[in-house]
C-alpha cells in the first residue's frame, strides 16, 4: 500500500526527519533494525513519530531475513535500518539472499560522517564497496538535499523489474544536516534516466510462442518465483492458461504456490529433490514453457543432457536470465503477468485447441511416472520419520490461514515435497543462496505482516541455532511464531552427501551438546514441546498450534533418513535415484566428491 503524499511543497527538515517522511510516503509501516552510533539521529527521529513502527531485532542478519519474510508474504518492500561497520557487514548474508531470490528490500545503513570516510574511523566499513556485488543497486548519500530523491529511487528500484535489495548508506552528518524534503512524484512508474525495466512483451514473439504452444505434442510448463513476484495477475493468468491448454505444469522451489498443488495438472516440484514425474517430463517434453524461472543448476542437473529433445520458450523480466545456462529457441523479456495475459488473449482469439491425441498419450506417459509414487517412504513404528511429521503438520494446518518458512537442508526439501501450497506468498524459503538461519527471522517478518495468521518455521536443529536469538524479539513484540524443528542431531544434508559421496565419513556433521529446546524456549519465557515417538507427533503439533505465543517444537526424527528422490549434483534428470524403497542401491563411491 502506498500513501498519498501530503506535502507537495518542499520544506526544511533534518536528514533524519526527511528519511522518516520518505519512508512514510513510500507506505512503509514497519522497519526491522538495530541501533548504533552512526544511526542515533535516525532513531531519535523515529522516537518522535508514530507513523513508522520499528522492530528491534537481536542480530542484523535477522533484520534482513525478517524484512525478506515481510516482503515475500505481502509483495511490499521490506525495510532494514542498521548502523555503520558491523551493523552493515552483518547484513551481507541477508542482502545476498535477497539478491539471489529477487526479494525487494531497502537496507538503510549508517555511515561515519563524510569527512571521516576513508580514515578507518571507529565502526567504519566500505559499505558501498562491500555490498556492491550483493545488491541490485546501492547509494552513498553525500548531501542532505539528495536524500529524499535517493530514498524514493531506492524503493522504486527495489520493487520494480526483477526485485532485489538496495542499500542506502547514510553518513551521520548528512542525516543531521538541515535540508529540503521532496515528495515522491509518481509512485508507480517514476521515470528514471537509465533504469527502465521492460514490462510489455514483444507482440510478434507472443504470437510465435502461441504457435509453438498450440502445436506441441509433449508440452510442459516450468514456472518459478517470477510468477509470484509479478503479482496476482500472473498467478491468475497462469492458472487460466494452464487450464485452457490442459498441459502439465511443474514449479520450482521458489515457484511453489504459483499453481495450486492439489490441481491434477500439477506434477509437483522439479529439480534435485523434485518428483520423478516432474523431472522425467522435463527430460522428455518436446516443448518447455519456462516462465519466471531461471534454469538454475539445481533444476537442470547436467547441462549437456538437459532436456535435449525439447524446444524451449523462456519468459523472464531479466534479460540476463535468458540464454544464461540453457540456450532457448524463443526468449521473451517481459513481466510474467503481462506476457501471460497476452498469451491467454491470443490463445482464445485464435481458438486454439491442443492436439488431443498427442496430449492424451503424453498424460498416459506421465501417469506411468506418477505411478512410481516417488515420495513414498518406509513408515516406522518406533522412530519418527521426518516425512511423516511433515505430513501430519500439513494435515493439521490444511485450510488454515497459514504461512510456512524453512531453514536450509533436508527438512527444507521434505517441506517442499510434503506441504502443499494452493496460493502464492505462503511459502518463504532460501532458494538461491541456501541460507541456514533464514527461516526463523523470516517467519518473524511474516508474522509482523500477518499478526493473526499461523506462521510456522520448518527447521532443522542446526539451522535453527544460527538465528535462534530472534526468539527474544518475538517475545518482546508478542509474535507467536512456531518453530517445527526436525531434530536429527546431524546437519542432515551434509551427512547425506557424506554418506553418498564421501564413503560415509561423517566429518564434523554431528552436533553433540545440543540444547534442550524445550528448556531453551522456557528460558526466553516461551513454550516448548517435544515428540520422540510417532504416536506423539499429532499431540505435539496440536500443542504447538494451540499454545499462545512462540513455541519451539522439538521433533526427534530418524537420524539417518535421506531425502529422495535425488538427482545427484551434475547428473542428468533420467539418472534420478528413487531411494532404497524402490530397490535401488545407495551410491557409496567417491566419484561424487567433485559435485556441488
Amino acid at each position, binding site marked *: 500500500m502506498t500513501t498519498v503524499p501530503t506535502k507537495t511543497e518542499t520544506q526544511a527538515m533534518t536528514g533524519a526527519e526527511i528519511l522518516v517522511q520518505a519512508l512514510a510516503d513510500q507506505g512503509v509501516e514497519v522497519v526491522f533494525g538495530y541501533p548504533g552510533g552512526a544511526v542515533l539521529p535516525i532513531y531519535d527521529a523515529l522516537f518522535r513519530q508514530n507513523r513508522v513502527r520499528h522492530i528491534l531485532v537481536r542480530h542484523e542478519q535477522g533484520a534482513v531475513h525478517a524484512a525478506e519474510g515481510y516482503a515475500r508474504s505481502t509483495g511490499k518492500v521490506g525495510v532494514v535500518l542498521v548502523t555503520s561497520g558491523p551493523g552493515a557487514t552483518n547484513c551481507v548474508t541477508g542482502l545476498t539472499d535477497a539478491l539471489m531470490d529477487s526479494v525487494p528490500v531497502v537496507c538503510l545503513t549508517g555511515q561515519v560522517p563524510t569527512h571521516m570516510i576513508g580514515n578507518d574511523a571507529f565502526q567504519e566499513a566500505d559499505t558501498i564497496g562491500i555490498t556492491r556485488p550483493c545488491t541490485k543497486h546501492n547509494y552513498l548519500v553525500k548531501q542532505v538535499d539528495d536524500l529524499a530523491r535517493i530514498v524514493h529511487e531506492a524503493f522504486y528500484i527495489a520493487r520494480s523489474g526483477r526485485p532485489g535489495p538496495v542499500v542506502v548508506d547514510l553518513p551521520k552528518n548528512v542525516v543531521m544536516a538541515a535540508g529540503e524534503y521532496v515528495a515522491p512524484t509518481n509512485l508507480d512508474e517514476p521515470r528514471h*534516466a537509465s533504469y527502465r525495466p521492460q514490462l510489455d512483451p514483444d507482440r510478434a514473439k507472443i504470437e510465435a510462442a502461441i504457435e509453438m504452444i498450440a502445436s506441441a505434442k509433449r508440452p510442459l510448463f516450468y514456472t518459478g518465483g517470477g510468477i509470484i513476484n509479478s503479482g496476482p495477475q500472473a498467478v491468475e493468468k497462469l492458472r487460466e492458461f494452464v487450464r485452457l491448454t490442459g498441459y502439465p505444469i511443474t514449479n520450482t522451489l521458489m515457484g511453489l504456490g504459483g499453481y495450486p498443488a492439489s490441481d491434477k495438472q500439477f506434477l509437483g516440484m522439479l529439480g534435485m529433490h523434485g518428483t520423478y514425474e516432474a523431472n522425467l517430463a522435463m527430460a522428455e517434453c518436446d516443448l518447455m514453457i519456462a516462465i519466471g524461472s531461471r534454469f538454475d543448476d539445481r533444476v537442470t542437473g547436467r547441462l549437456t543432457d538437459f532436456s535435449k529433445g525439447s524446444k524451449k520458450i523462456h519468459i523472464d523480466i531479466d*534479460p540476463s536470465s535468458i540464454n544464461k545456462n540453457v540456450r532457448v529457441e524463443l526468449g521473451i523479456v517481459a513481466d510474467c503477468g503481462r506476457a501471460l495475459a497476452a498469451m491467454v488473449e491470443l490463445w482464445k482469439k485464435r481458438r486454439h485447441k491442443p492436439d488431443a491425441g498427442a496430449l492424451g498419450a503424453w498424460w498416459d506417459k506421465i501417469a506411468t511416472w506418477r505411478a512410481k509414487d516417488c515420495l513414498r517412504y518406509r513408515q516406522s513404528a518406533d522412530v519418527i520419520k521426518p516425512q511423516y511429521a511433515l505430513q501430519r503438520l500439513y494435515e493439521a494446518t490444511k485450510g488454515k490461514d497459514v504461512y510456512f518458512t524453512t531453514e536450509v537442508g533436508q527438512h527444507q526439501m521434505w517441506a517442499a515435497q510434503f506441504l502443499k501450497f494452493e496460493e502464492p506468498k505462503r511459502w518463504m524459503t532460501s532458494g538461491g543462496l541456501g541460507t541456514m538461519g533464514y527461516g526463523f527471522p523470516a517467519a518473524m517478518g511474516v508474522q509482523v505482516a500477518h499478526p493473526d495468521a499461523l506462521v510456522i518455521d520448518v527447521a532443522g536443529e542446526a539451522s535453527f541455532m544460527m538465528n535462534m536469538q530472534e526468539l527474544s524479539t518475538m517475545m518482546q513484540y508478542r509474535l507467536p511464531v512456531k518453530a517445527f524443528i526436525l531434530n536429527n542431531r546431524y546437519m542432515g544434508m551434509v551427512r547425506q552427501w557424506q554418506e553418498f559421496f564421501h564413503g560415509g565419513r561423517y566429518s564434523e556433521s554431528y552436533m553433540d551438546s545440543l540444547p534442550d529446546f524445550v528448556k531453551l524456549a522456557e528460558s526466553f519465557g516461551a513454550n516448548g514441546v517435544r515428540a520422540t515417538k510417532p504416536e506423539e507427533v499429532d499431540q505435539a503439533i496440536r500443542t504447538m498450534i494451540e499454545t499462545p505465543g512462540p513455541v519451539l517444537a522439538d521433533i526427534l526424527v530418524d537420524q539417518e533418513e535421506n531425502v529422495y528422490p535425488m538427482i545427484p549434483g551434475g547428473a542428468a534428470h533420467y539418472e534420478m535415484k528413487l531411494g532404497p524403497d524402490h530397490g535401488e542401491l545407495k551410491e557409496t563411491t567417491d566419484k561424487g566428491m567433485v559435485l556441488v
Partner: protein
Amino acid sequence: MTSALYTSAPDPSVERHTFSVLVENEPGVLARVIGLFSGRGYNIESLTVAEVDSVRRLSRINLVTTGSRMIIEQIKNQLDRLVPVHKVHDLTVEGAHLEREIALIKVVGKGEKRVESLRIADIFRAHVVDSTDKSFVFEMTGRPDKIDAFIRLMEPLGLIEISRAGVVAMSRGTDGI
C-alpha cells in the same frame, strides 16, 4: 618439451567483441562494471573510460572482451542490467565499426638499430615525441593490430617500454549511439 600451455589450440568458439557502454558519470560506476566482469569470470582485454557529455553527465566505456556466443550475450545483458547504465552496444555484432588506440613506445639504441627504428616508425606513421642521443619515444595511433605489429618490429631494436591507452571505438555510418 610439450606443455599444456602451448599444445592446446585456441578455442574456435571464443569470439572477440567490442562494446560501447554509455553510463551515468557517477562515483563507483566503473567499479560496478569491473566488479561485474571479475565476479562473473569474464575477460577484459581492454577498457577505456571518459566523460563524453558534461551536460547530461554521461561517460562512455569502450570495452574489448572475449567469450563464447552465450557469454558475450550474457555480458551485454548483465551490463544492461546495471542501474546507471544507459545503453550497451555490441559494435562487433552491430556491423562495421572503427577501433583506434594510442600508444607511446620507448626504444633505446644506437647506430644502425636507431636508424632502423626511425625508418619503421615513418612507415607506420608514428611520430617522435621525445628523443635523446640514445632513445626515441614514438607516439602512434591506429588499429590495435597495427600497434601490435609496430611493437613486434621494435622488439629487436631496443624496445624498453610500452604505454597503451586501450581501445576507443565507434560504429561507421550515420547512426549515433
